């Protein structure tokens, strides 16, 4: 029983090596105090992409975007990447959930 509990996550982790070779563009933005320094990220429609968020604050943040299905915590003074599936044209909001009233940015898909 114990073995099985341990073996499963290990198995999953070794089996999985996220694809890197594929052509997927990374867009970067930084959260400083209450604002994203790239507050509008332009991406082409119909292609998956990656957002890299640098958290320049000491406090942790949580990148959240309901339409893009993003919900990921980022520790203070560190970075995360999130994969976003191909989106249709439009303007999509992302926020730092911990201060969502003020820390807002948009991904503009066109």
């Amino acid at each position, binding site marked *: 029983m114990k073995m*099985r*509990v341990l073996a*499963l996550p290990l198995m999953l982790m070794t089996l999985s*090596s*996220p694809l890197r070779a594929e052509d997927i563009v990374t867009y970067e933005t930084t959260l400083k105090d209450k604002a994203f320094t790239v507050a509008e990220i332009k991406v082409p429609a119909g292609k998956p992409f990656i957002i890299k968020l640098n958290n320049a604050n000491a406090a942790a943040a949580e990148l959240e975007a309901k339409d893009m299905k993003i919900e*990921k915590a980022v520790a203070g003074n*560190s*970075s995360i990447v999130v994969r976003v599936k191909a989106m249709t044209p439009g303007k999509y909001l992302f926020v730092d959930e911990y201060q969502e009233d003020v820390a807002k940015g948009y991904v503009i898909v066109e």
Partner: protein
Amino acid sequence: MIGALIIVFREVIEAGLIIGIVMAATQTVMGSRKWIIGGVLAGIVGSCILAMFTGSLASLFDGFGQELFNAAILAVAVCMLTWHNIWMAMNGRAMAGELKQAGIAVREGQKSLMALAIIVGTAVLREGSEVVLFLYGVAIGGRETAGGMALGGALGLAIGGAVSFFTFRGLLKIPNRYFFSVTSWLITFLAAGMAAQSVSFLEKAGVATILQNTVWDSSGFLAESSILGKIMHTLIGYSDQPTVLQLVVYLAVLVSGFGLTKWIRRPKMVVA
């Protein structure tokens, strides 16, 4: 304060529901309470540890360490829920009916109780670290509203606890002869939903890449991120934009879960 309350509540509602259901489902199993409390405490301690290592975890696997970690613990929880359902199907009836046998059953049941502790532990662990990060941020942020936010956070946790309690009490109101069936359905749905969610984390990590078309989009009808959406997401695995792969895995776990329980229980139902 309200903002903080909502943030924390959104994170803990899922664990709250799961704990309530597991508590109700194992209400007749002697010693289950101890294991559930143990699981919750271990989950809280684990959350604090996980929160400390969020940065390092995020940098693993090309930046998708958190997703893979979540996928893995969800997969573990699915196995434990299935194991528990099978075990309850084999022993639950006898135990509920004849207390004399309960002592023997409990000795055999220690493994199932361990599974239970793991289920609640992973439920707390999954969202708990985010609550810890948030509250820690409030504490070090030195904002003028820190006091109010801390209070909001505490209230959010308390409401999450209340969700557990009312789920538990609500389920206990179910008449005895349906009780076993209802709780085992609930657990099967929980397991199916978690399996689909595990797949969605693998998709986010870029590991699961087949069958990626969206089956439907019901976000306009019931957004998964709303409170009701979140409750439905936890209870039956509701997703407002599931991929084909998520749906396939969901149905596979659901059908095999029901099938197994029915198959195990069949001879006993003839006797009864």
